[in-house]
């Protein structure tokens, strides 16, 4: 299985766990898309890029430490992004705002850890 297929598998499981999540994408912080589920996940990609570029540094709060995740909830939809620890990559999600945010938070972080395991190459 290729890296991309393995990540896609993680995303598929995440989507199945989170009722209401419509699109999930894994992106590098420069906006490069690594993997999406389903394949057409425009909203997840667009909002994740916006969240990173629009909020990223400006919303940083040194007193609270580095930003690890962000959720925006609107009337109908939500957009979220989570940083993959020690990597310049994020998981972006888009879906119905009725989603359980507690579950979204824990399941997304767990998915981030699994994606990190797939992508992380230890330095020799």
């Amino acid at each position, binding site marked *: 299985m290729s890296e991309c297929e393995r990540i896609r598998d993680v995303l598929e499981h995440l989507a199945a766990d989170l009722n209401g999540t419509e699109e999930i994408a894994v992106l590098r912080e420069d906006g490069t898309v690594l993997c999406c589920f389903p394949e057409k996940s425009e909203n997840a990609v667009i909002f994740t890029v*916006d969240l990173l570029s*629009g*909020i990223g540094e*400006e*919303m940083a*709060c*040194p*007193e*609270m*430490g*580095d*930003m*690890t*995740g*962000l*959720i*925006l*909830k*609107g*009337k*109908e*939809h939500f*957009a979220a992004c*989570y940083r993959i620890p020690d990597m310049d990559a994020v998981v972006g999600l888009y879906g119905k*705002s009725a989603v359980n*945010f*507690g579950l979204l*938070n824990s399941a997304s972080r767990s998915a981030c850890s699994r994606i990190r395991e797939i992508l992380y190459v230890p330095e020799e």
Partner: protein
Amino acid sequence: METKNDSVLSLLAVSSEPHLCSALTAYAKNECSVFPAETVLKALDMLSQAPFDILLADLEDCKRDIVKLFVMAKKKEPGLHLVAAMDADTGMPEGKIMEHSRITFIGKPFTADDFGQKIRAGMRDAERRTHPLSIFDVVLLYSLCRENLMLTVTRQCRTEKNSGTLYFENGGISSAGSGSLLGEDAFYEIMRWTDVRFAERRGETAKFRDITRTREDLLLEVIRHSDRELRMMATQEFRVDEVTPVLSVSDGSEKESGDQNPSEAELTALACRLGISKILKELRDGTDSLENAIVTDTEGMILAELYPESAQPLHRIVMNALDFCYKQSLWPESEGLEEMLLFCQKGIIMLFPVSDKGIMGIAVRHHNFGLIRQICENAAAQIEKILR
């Protein structure tokens, strides 16, 4: 250099026009010793050798160096009274702008009345005199110089560092930028800063003109902002000391006549603030992980805050969130913003818009996320009722 007589005021006049110094000497009579300096360099040298009470600089001679001269002189002599002399027909600041500035402006050729009314009055106004130069004065001086330049303004406070740029062109401000803000928004933001450093780059012009209002309009708007904030602060003090008993009477029958009593609108605003403060305190008592909480209106003006001394980072985040969602239109307007959660290494920052009138920002240390979010949502709902 003549020796200075301690019993009279000493006035250092920076001007290449001999008759300006003659006029000063004539009008000052026995109360001022006038010391002329033809250039800014000479003036700085004289300032380093002896203390002065009044520093008068001719804007036409000093140009933009007047800012450096005034800043350095103020640093050396905090009680120095600064006077800028300029041609009266080249856009002298007037009215409110003149009153708001900590510099006295006189038009050339000035008269005995100018000296009597403005310079002497400025000298008597100890509070105005001893205040350091503000960003307002610096911007005013740079614009009066009528030179094209770019000014980089940096503010470094305990918790954060901000910087912004202002472009001056032909006596006006043509462009401003700070963080994600551009144009007038950036200008007003920069003008709120205190303890700033600035660096100028001569001859630079803005690529795009994003400010079209005149210098006077912009500065008057800054004064309005500042007055509003001062009123707000005064109201808060008033609330603590005197207003609470009056608020308990719903029909206002106890409202006594007299100028110091607040209007009905002010009372309503105070009642709102009291109600919101109470909810924030209840929120604090209901959880042991609350770092801070603030409620602002949609313009970012703080309506209530739990710990004012540490509210600045949270306030900044609220402002940025407002900007991100409403001004930059990155989040669809049709969706509206119901909640924003920012997860950080040491805790969570939650933002809840409350009706269309305000936003509640809460910083919590790591805790039961579901529970704390529920508590905050309830608090936001209560605040929403008050604001409605």
